[in-house]
């Protein structure tokens, strides 16, 4: 029978050593090294074109790395076919077989592995029950909603009980409400399956809420790896600082808030309007969000800053000249040329 409680027997850590993937002159992934311990929920986060999907596909075996080594557990898998890697893949487009019923879709991975009929029917029904799909087993994917289709794709992934789940933006095609629900379902699934998840997204909310660790990628390299809180609290670069957090971190030009050649960053919640000191700026927009107000200010032609304020406070108005400061203990400092973090 299908029993999630005690099916784990292998260790499925992932280790990437100097992995590169080049398409012609394009270095999609450039010498990436990453350790994903067993049972971790690792998020690969970054803007489109940063190489996160390519890196995931390299782990799944859909791309051959140009250089470097990919280990799953203790095994070097560079030359191992995807089917022998004990990996399941969930795609953004769901990739369900439109001509097969939900049941046949879920059973397919077992069928190709030669599992006998009764066993795979039981496994498929158990997987479907886990994801609340039992009433839809005999429908075609075309008759299901987007959220249901995504759950079928998840059921098809878990039915094989793989050690590693690779998910490529699985929620991007869902509407906002369904996305939030399915997010929680995937997190619960991870807790129950005790498998290693590698999850690609460009959505920092997904990254913050789902991952045990986040790898922030840009231009084929990993800028920072850490827990969501670490990445938020101590961003390793200006890029990470501005990519994580909504609205993004305010960056003050060198020499404006502090003397010196470094940049100073402050989250909107720790940026304050002050009367006496600070950087002069002009209010360009006041946004009322109900629970708070966001004051958008222009420091100069290229630098903007956002201040979050209580809606009950006295708010500045469009065109007002204000002074901005950041609470001393919440300041981040970055090198002006390299953009990387400076710790004092």
């Amino acid at each position, binding site marked *: 029978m299908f029993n999630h409680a005690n099916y784990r027997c292998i260790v499925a850590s992932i280790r990437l050593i100097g992995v590169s993937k080049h398409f012609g002159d394009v270095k999609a992934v450039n010498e990436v090294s990453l350790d994903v311990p067993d049972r971790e929920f690792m998020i690969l986060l970054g803007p489109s074109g940063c190489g996160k999907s390519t890196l995931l596909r390299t782990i799944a075996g859909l791309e051959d790395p140009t250089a470097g080594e990919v280990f799953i557990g203790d095994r070097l898998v560079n030359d191992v076919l995807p089917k022998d890697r004990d*990996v399941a893949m969930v*795609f953004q487009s769901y990739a369900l*077989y439109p001509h097969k019923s939900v049941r046949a879709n879920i059973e*397919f*991975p077992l069928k*190709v592995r030669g599992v006998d009929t009764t066993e795979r029917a039981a496994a498929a029904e158990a997987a479907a029950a886990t994801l609340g799909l039992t009433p839809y087993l005999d429908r075609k994917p075309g008759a299901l909603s987007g959220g249901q289709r995504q759950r079928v794709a998840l059921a*098809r992934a878990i039915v*094989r009980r793989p050690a590693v789940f690779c998910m490529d933006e699985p929620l991007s095609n869902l509407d906002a409400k369904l996305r939030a629900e399915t997010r929680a379902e995937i997190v619960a699934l991870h807790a129950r399956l005790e498998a290693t998840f590698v999850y690609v997204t460009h959505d920092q909310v997904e990254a913050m809420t789902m991952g045990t660790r986040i790898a922030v990628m840009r231009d084929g390299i990993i800028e920072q790896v850490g827990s969501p809180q670490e990445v938020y609290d101590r961003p390793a670069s200006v890029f990470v600082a501005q990519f994580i957090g909504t609205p993004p971190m305010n960056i003050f030009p060198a020499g404006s808030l502090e003397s010196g050649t470094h940049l100073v960053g402050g989250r909107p919640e720790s940026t304050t309007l002050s009367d006496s000191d600070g950087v002069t700026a002009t209010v360009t927009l006041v946004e009322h969000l109900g629970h708070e107000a966001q004051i958008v200010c222009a420091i100069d032609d290229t630098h903007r800053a956002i201040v979050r304020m209580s809606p009950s406070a006295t708010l500045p108005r469009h065109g007002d000249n204000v002074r901005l400061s950041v609470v001393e203990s919440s300041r981040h400092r970055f090198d002006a040329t390299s953009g990387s973090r400076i710790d004092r």
Partner: protein
Amino acid sequence: MKTSTRRRWRETPLAIAMLGPSLLILVAFVLYPLGRAVWLGQQRCNVQATKCRSVGWGQYTDVLRSHEFQSAVWVTVKFALITVPIGLALGVGLAVLADKHLRHIGFFRTIFSSTVATSVAVASLMWLFLLQPSVGVLANIGWLNDLFPVIKEPGLLNDKGTALSSVAISSVWANLGFTFIVITAGLQGIPRELQESAFVDGAGGWRRFTNVTLPLLSPTLLFTTVVLTSRAFQAYGEIDLLTNGGPVPQQSTTTVTYLIYGSSSIIKSNEGLKAAVAVLLFVILLGLSALQFRGLGKRVHYGA
């Protein structure tokens, strides 16, 4: 209700004016000739076709019962049974081969689809040079002739056993470009993730082909089958150029179209009979297409 009816009538002239041009073309070039052919089918004419008189609709049943017509239908069916499956299989095979992301694959795609740009006349002449029994290319390959003496004596196109297959092969070749292009387009419509998903799930090449490629290609395959079948039933140029409906006296390559139009057809000087055969061919093709869409349609998956 009343106002909508009135409005509908008021819009009628406009509707006719808009439909006019295409209606005119349809009537002048399709409906009128079709009706004329149906009418001609119950007439008997003199050799110059200057004088025709009605002999009754029974002429259709006479044609239907005649040995010549039945034999031509059988030859046509055999021709279709050779050309359609082989053409389809080769088209799918080549398209799947060329669907890989390989270097210089564009070169091979161009070659595979090149027969589209070859007219029936050119293709048939080329095959004539290949198959000609004394100076043809095949006739000059010694070991092949030892293996198949029919190549030299009487020649593949002159032997009653091989003539039809030989013409059919040339027809397969000529249609291959079309099949290849249509199926390549169909393959490109299959999302790559479906193949990748099956690949990760452990499906090998053959299983991916049967479980993913073929089912998702089925609308394209149905379309291609219908087109190839109707082309097979209407094949004329290659038969006229390669065998002239022969070899005589078996008339083993006299298909229905050749019976209608061929220069050595037994009814070549009787316009009424020719029209009757043409109308019957039209009915057969109509029935066949309906059958294909109904029968195969049930097994076709038009995606999610």
